[in-house]
């Protein structure tokens, strides 16, 4: 289950030391900028900024290749659709398939946009621990009127940690169950329907039992969603304030 947390690379660079809130807000600002970009020059500028940040933080480039890979087939489809179905000067012509120059430009801008969106998000998650992001998100959500939903931002953060506990637990119990059933003579390839039944029913049973246990544990420790203190206290430094002002100026310039 270690690969679930591989997205975080520990370190001591300036991005690591920034407040998680600054980073999450910065990522939002950058995402809005990226969605507005429509020329290759600014794309190149983005790429340079990204490369400088990665090198300054001593992060491996391979890490970012891995974060983009799952979505690449989808981006390729979008690129091909733009290439083949945009009207304009013909670049090539294979009977039914006609590629146009305008389509090529539009398609590559779009694909690059999506790749940069993912890359910058990966940059943030590589430099912030999951618990750091959780507490940052918790603090950012606090002013929202969540109490009309009947829940506090602490509850949401608590539920995020609970899910983080359940995911490896589900994987582990699934592996145990599969081994147990195989050692009792279950052939998954021969009888798939029977295999699904004999794996899911005990898995659901185990999950429900651990829900009961966790709920009992929280209840007996008098869990409440309000006025909780945290182990990691977030604090804004002067660099964080400077960056916040910078985001505001950037977004102001972009939308004026």
């Amino acid at each position, binding site marked *: 289950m270690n690969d679930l947390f591989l997205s975080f690379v520990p370190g001591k660079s300036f991005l690591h030391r920034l407040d998680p809130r600054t980073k999450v807000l910065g990522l939002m600002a950058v995402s809005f900028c990226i969605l507005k970009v429509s020329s290759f020059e600014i794309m190149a500028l983005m790429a340079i900024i990204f490369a400088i940040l990665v090198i300054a933080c001593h992060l491996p480039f391979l890490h970012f290749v891995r974060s983009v890979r799952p979505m690449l087939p989808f981006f390729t489809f979008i690129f091909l659709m733009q290439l083949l179905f945009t009207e304009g000067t013909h670049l090539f012509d294979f009977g039914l398939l006609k590629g146009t120059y305008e389509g090529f430009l539009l398609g590559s801008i779009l694909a690059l946009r999506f790749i940069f969106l993912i890359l910058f998000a990966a940059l943030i998650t590589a430099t912030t621990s999951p618990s750091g*992001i959780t507490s940052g998100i918790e603090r950012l959500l606090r002013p929202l009127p969540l109490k009309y939903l009947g829940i506090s931002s602490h509850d949401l953060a608590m539920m995020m940690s609970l899910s983080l506990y359940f995911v490896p637990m589900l994987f582990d119990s699934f592996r145990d169950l599969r081994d147990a059933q195989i050692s009792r003579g279950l052939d998954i390839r021969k009888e798939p329907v029977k295999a699904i039944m004999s794996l899911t029913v005990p898995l659901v049973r185990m999950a429900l039992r651990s829900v009961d246990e966790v709920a009992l544990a929280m209840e007996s420790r008098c869990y409440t969603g309000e006025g909780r203190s945290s182990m990691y206290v977030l604090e804004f430094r002067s660099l964080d304030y400077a960056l916040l002002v910078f985001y505001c100026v950037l977004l102001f310039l972009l939308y004026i």
Partner: protein
Amino acid sequence: MLNVNHFQTTNSNNIKKMVFASLFAALMAVGAYVEIPIPASPVPITLQTFFVLLTGAILGARWGTISVIVYLLLGIAGLPVFSGGSSGLGMIFGPTGGFLIGFMFGAFIIGYLSDRFGTKNIGLNIAIMLAGLSVIYVFGILQLMNVADLSLTQALVLGMIPYLPGAVLKLIAAAVISSRYSLNQE
């Protein structure tokens, strides 16, 4: 099956639903990894949408929506819980982000209708989940058209038609399961 209660105090129902919502968020995250190849479709089906449909019907509007929100927050926090193991805020703003936003509203619609009409009847469940699923697709297709600059037909070909056979199977399975188990009518 869900009525095995070893304890009962004033606040326990809320805490229990909260833990259940977290479990469903975890199931959605795991479901994105479970790929089942089916014959009549070019893409494998993932269990993510299945759990989104189920969470609305089983947990109801409020906790169903919260469960999806927790799932999205996990993805934003950088855990690889979105389909194919991707994550980050970039996915929400990206071409497939509409589906993720749609999950939230889909779970709410399904939860609201299930609270209103009950979930005992399989036929009714199918109708309710169809409504929820179409909400998910409306959000997904609109964002795909908008962000990736596609026409309606192109967006449908890319984002909806290959997934339809799988979606029908998932919908029926979710409807049958939610007719058996529910936390709401306790």
